[in-house]
């Protein structure tokens, strides 16, 4: 298992210019929901790409359109294959979600600091996830399941907008069937054909089984969801420094030069996106940020 950053922050591939993306070919594509697709990419060039750790992201380039920061959602054990789950939310992401097998896109990175998995070893691990917060945490699950004996209880609470917005549906069913982790799913609203939980994901926290004095939590999703969930975990006795959040801002360069992703004193592409709640709690409350 890697450390927080497999490649030093600011590392890149693609030659001399840190801005130049390397060509990657789409080798597999899955439609997750109406507006979200998962692309598996492999480098066109034979040279192996740098490794990555769960929680890092790439800058993906849609040719002639532009770039977007997309979290890596595949397994670190297969570093040549770079998997990304992308929701169509603008011109760049719309073009990326429409990419077909065989198409070539650009890729820079990996960038940022990932989830501190080593800190969770020997402890209970909680993942609290909202919406497209699951893709950045899926590599964590892969790593945990590959080294399951290193962790105590593993609890996941995943919330989505509706049942139709759940990504990785088949994988979730497999995770839910496992005896060595507990995977709860809730949706904000549903029709009568849904017999699962309805509400918001932080509601599941009182039901999660863990020892607050020896647990680490990773939170990823909309900021308001992370804020409520972090507070619910603190209310259950967890220390703020054991709760980690993945922050999202407008990443541009990816290596701490342009300042677009500044959040308080942090440049999230370089210092984050994963940060301890104890470091960012005060900035959550600032509306200007």
């Amino acid at each position, binding site marked *: 298992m890697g450390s927080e950053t497999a490649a030093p922050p600011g590392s890149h591939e693609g030659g001399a210019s840190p801005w130049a993306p390397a060509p990657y070919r789409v080798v597999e594509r899955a439609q997750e929901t109406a507006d979200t697709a998962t692309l598996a990419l492999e480098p066109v060039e034979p040279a192996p790409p740098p490794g990555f750790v769960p929680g890092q992201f790439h800058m993906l380039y849609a040719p002639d359109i532009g770039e977007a920061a997309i979290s890596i959602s595949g397994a670190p054990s297969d570093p040549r294959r770079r998997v990304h789950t992308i929701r169509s939310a603008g011109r760049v992401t719309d073009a990326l979600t429409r990419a077909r097998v065989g198409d070539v896109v650009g890729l820079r990175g990996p960038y940022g600091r990932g989830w501190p998995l080593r800190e969770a070893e020997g402890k209970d691990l909680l993942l609290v996830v*909202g919406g497209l917060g699951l893709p950045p945490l899926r590599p964590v699950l892969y790593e945990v399941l590959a080294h399951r004996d290193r962790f105590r209880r593993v609890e996941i609470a995943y*919330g989505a907008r509706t049942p139709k917005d759940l990504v990785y549906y088949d994988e979730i069913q497999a995770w839910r069937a496992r005896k060595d982790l507990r995977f709860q799913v809730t949706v904000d609203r549903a029709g*009568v054909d849904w*017999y699962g939980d*309805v509400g*918001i994901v932080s509601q599941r926290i009182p039901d999660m089984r863990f020892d607050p004095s020896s647990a680490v939590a990773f939170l990823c999703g909309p900021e*308001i*969801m992370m804020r409520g969930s972090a507070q619910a975990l603190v209310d259950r006795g967890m220390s703020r420094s054991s709760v980690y959040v993945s922050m999202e801002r407008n990443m541009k360069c990816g290596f701490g030069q342009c300042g677009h992703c500044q959040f308080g004193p942090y440049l999230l592409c370089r210092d984050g996106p994963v940060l301890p709640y104890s470091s960012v709690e005060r900035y959550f409350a600032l509306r200007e940020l």
Partner: protein
Amino acid sequence: MRSPKPDLRGELREHPFLRGMDPGFLQAIEGATQERSFGTGDPLIREGEAAKEMLLVQQGKIGLELVAPDRPRLSLLTVGPGEIVGWSWLIPPHIWLSDGRALKPTRVLAIDGASLRAVLEDRPKDAYQFMLRLVPVISRRLQIARIQVMDIHGV
């Protein structure tokens, strides 16, 4: 062999909503409490009908649903063991404001609303403690509804 009848008194005292309430108050509502069981899909409450009971969930899962003309039935919240269903029994005109349906085999403790109101009126200190438990439930559900309205997972 038939399983023994659940100890309603003990279950009432141990339900998270009532745990720690004054023993005299709990004794006063014991006689107004019944156990009810529902199969998957069974309705527990129905919008527009008289809200005659407070429901304490012991087992299972209840979906609180809204129905509007020309729209599909919408599930907005599920409630499980340790939680409660409804405060319409307390607030005039005592009419349920949503439907409630069992999403799996469900068992509740049902406290007669008129009796409960009478006990609360007779025991103001206990009524205050009761409200200190009920208002946070209402507050949490209002907060949940606000976040749902924000559609935070939308683009």
